[in-house]
């Protein structure tokens, strides 16, 4: 009984803490809240009228929602790039920040689930996916696998973060059995979410552009570049905006990881382009449409070339000693995040539908309403993550703790001033 009471007190304190912040924090949250509501408003309109409010058609039946979903699954999976150094290589510095990656994974998976939900024509029937009431087509449908792995990954991370934070709050040493096994399961699970999402496309024999074994490895390589790049930026924001000190070591290690993953991504891209353009079969039509335009239709050409140059530019900067300084490093990170976001959306999802299986070329541009919904979900994701950091950091610092008078519960070692 007492344990339950303690936990309720904990939740109550979290709730109260959520509403206390500096004016900067408050304005940031109000801004994100307003943008989220604008997105919700756009979604309410879509719910009433139908997906006609989007730019999608019978020919291009997936668009910005699924593109953002695909990109974000990768970002969520990239939390393992902190978990592996922290737990397998026992990197002390990484251990101090690994929770930030896991919290980000939670926020991003929720964004993924939102992007899928807004894409549904009948969101009122989402329960058809949930056994035993629904009729999930498992194990045949890759989409049913995706539902399982995404929700599983969300639960794993919720458990790991929730448990560790609560133990820290209580000032108790976490019992290894209660979280270490989950951490290791989560490593493989993270790989699975992006692999399964890739298989969603790879499994379609009628779409030659996607029906290629290179899609899954490319998904992982690009995700493990974009995700850590986002973490590099996030860590700097956290240490500037909150009192939580993050050293340079995790950032240096992440930079090295991005150097490798981005190189692999570009190498795999080269392999893909060679296969498509050297043999030049009619299966290359989508790739031709994407990179050079097809029969005078070339809406995606500027996008994909920008993505390529952003990625190459980012790699050059990251490989050079220049990126030991923060400004060039951050610019490279921003460039590669945008580059990979374009690559996943305009570069992978949309051209898979163009030309259509019957040779029609119908181009796609997201509508305003559709864009507002996307922006709203991004804002809501940022809102969730900001909130999680806002309540987690005081716990991690030892400011918010169960025993108010004792300072013995504080295990965080002060950093030596340099």
């Amino acid at each position: 009984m007492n344990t339950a009471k303690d936990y309720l007190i904990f939740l109550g304190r979290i709730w109260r803490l959520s509403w206390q912040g500096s004016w900067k924090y408050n304005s940031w949250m109000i801004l994100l809240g307003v943008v989220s509501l604008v997105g919700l408003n756009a979604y309410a309109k879509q719910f009433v009228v139908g997906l006609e409010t989007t730019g999608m058609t019978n020919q291009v039946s997936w668009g910005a929602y699924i593109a953002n979903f695909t990109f974000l699954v990768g970002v969520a999976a990239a939390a393992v790039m902190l978990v592996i150094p922290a737990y397998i290589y026992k990197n002390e510095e990484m251990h101090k920040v690994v929770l930030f990656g896991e919290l980000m994974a939670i926020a991003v998976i929720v964004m993924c689930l939102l992007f899928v939900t807004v894409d549904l024509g009948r969101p009122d029937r989402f329960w058809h996916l949930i056994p035993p009431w629904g009729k999930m087509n498992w194990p045949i449908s890759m989409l049913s696998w995706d539902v399982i792995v995404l929700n599983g990954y969300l639960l794993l991370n919720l458990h790991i973060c929730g448990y560790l934070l609560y133990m820290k709050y209580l000032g108790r040493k976490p019992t290894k059995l209660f979280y270490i096994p989950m951490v290791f399961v989560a490593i493989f699970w993270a790989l699975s979410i992006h692999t399964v999402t890739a298989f969603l496309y790879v499994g379609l024999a009628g779409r030659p552009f996607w029906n290629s074994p290179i899609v899954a490895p490319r998904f992982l390589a690009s995700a493990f570049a974009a995700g850590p790049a986002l973490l590099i930026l996030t860590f700097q924001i956290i240490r500037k905006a909150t009192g939580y000190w993050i050293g340079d070591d995790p950032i240096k290690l992440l930079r090295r990881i991005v150097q490798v993953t981005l190189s692999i991504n570009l190498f795999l891209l080269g392999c893909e382009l060679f296969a498509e353009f050297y043999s030049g079969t009619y299966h290359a039509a989508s790739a031709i449409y994407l990179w050079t335009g097809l029969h005078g239709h070339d809406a995606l050409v500027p996008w994909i070339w920008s993505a390529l140059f952003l990625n190459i530019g980012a790699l050059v900067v990251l490989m050079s000693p220049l990126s030991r300084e923060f400004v060039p490093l951050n610019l490279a990170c921003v460039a590669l995040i945008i580059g990979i976001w374009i690559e996943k959306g305009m570069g992978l999802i949309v051209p898979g539908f163009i030309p259509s299986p019957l040779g029609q070329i119908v181009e796609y541009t997201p509508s305003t309403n559709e864009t507002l919904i996307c922006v709203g979900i991004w804002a809501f994701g940022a809102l969730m993550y900001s909130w999680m950091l806002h309540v987690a950091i005081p716990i991690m610092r030892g400011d918010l703790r169960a025993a108010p008078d004792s300072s013995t519960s504080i295990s965080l070692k002060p950093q030596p001033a340099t």
Partner: protein
Amino acid sequence: MANGSPIQPKRVEEALKPLTRRTFLKGTAATMAGVAGLVSALRPLLSLERGEITMDELLQKHYSQLKPEDMQHILGVLEKKCEREYGVKPDIRDIKPLAGVQFGYALSLTKCIGCRKCAHACMAENNQSRDYDDDVNMSYIRVLELAKGSINVETSDHYYTGEVPKKDKYYMPVQCHQCQESPCTKACPVQATWMEPDGVVTVDYNWCIGCRYCMAACPYDARRFNFKKPTIGEQAINPNQSYLSNRIRPKGVVEKCTFCLHRTREGKYPACLEVCPTGARVFGNLLDPASEINYILKNKRVYILKEDAGTVPKFYYYFD
């Protein structure tokens, strides 16, 4: 690079300020502003048509779990809804497949003249949404105009106009191939689309969640999505309807050709065959050795579109 300052944990009162009258009022004001924002964001929901989502449909079970009396009830609900929304009371039935039947369809590329009568007849029969009278965008049949000398669909024209047949062209109508190894039914995450015992791939419009994964999976572009509530004039409605085929679809679900199962399961031909002026279309039972379709499969030069996709269609093109 940047450096840090030592961390001294704050006192709890500093981290979590005690609740005062001031903070309480501030919190209340913020909550009220938030709720007001939420309500105004959701305002468009007020214009949702009443009765568009009925409780019966919302809580309906999967087709395979429906008892006959459940189905009767649902059919009644759907009939009333159609009358209320479209002004026509249809007769909706749940027509079951016949034993010992596997439907197959063959189309002569030699005979087809590209008149698109099949695409229009499909619309008249199957109650698809249309924005104007001869709008065939949602028709289950797309007629491709191809240049003689090649059979590459990528060079096809879907929007050809003028008198047909043109001298240097030939025509290929494409509709659902009712594949034996159907990638669309594999893709569906909720088993809302499946192959019936007579080989027809159907969709339960009351179960489909509208994810459109089946559309991405289809190599024949045979599926259509209801991006909005179907628009169809009172006089254009075919009141003879069935649950798994031509009843008017709700918004947000996928639909497709069912070989007109409400006709063919009762011994009639599909609407597209009946209207064809050249006799290019042959429909029948693949399990009946004496059927015309079997004669064609045994004796004519048969072409299967995209055979390399490995979906084993039951729709065949042939040359006379």
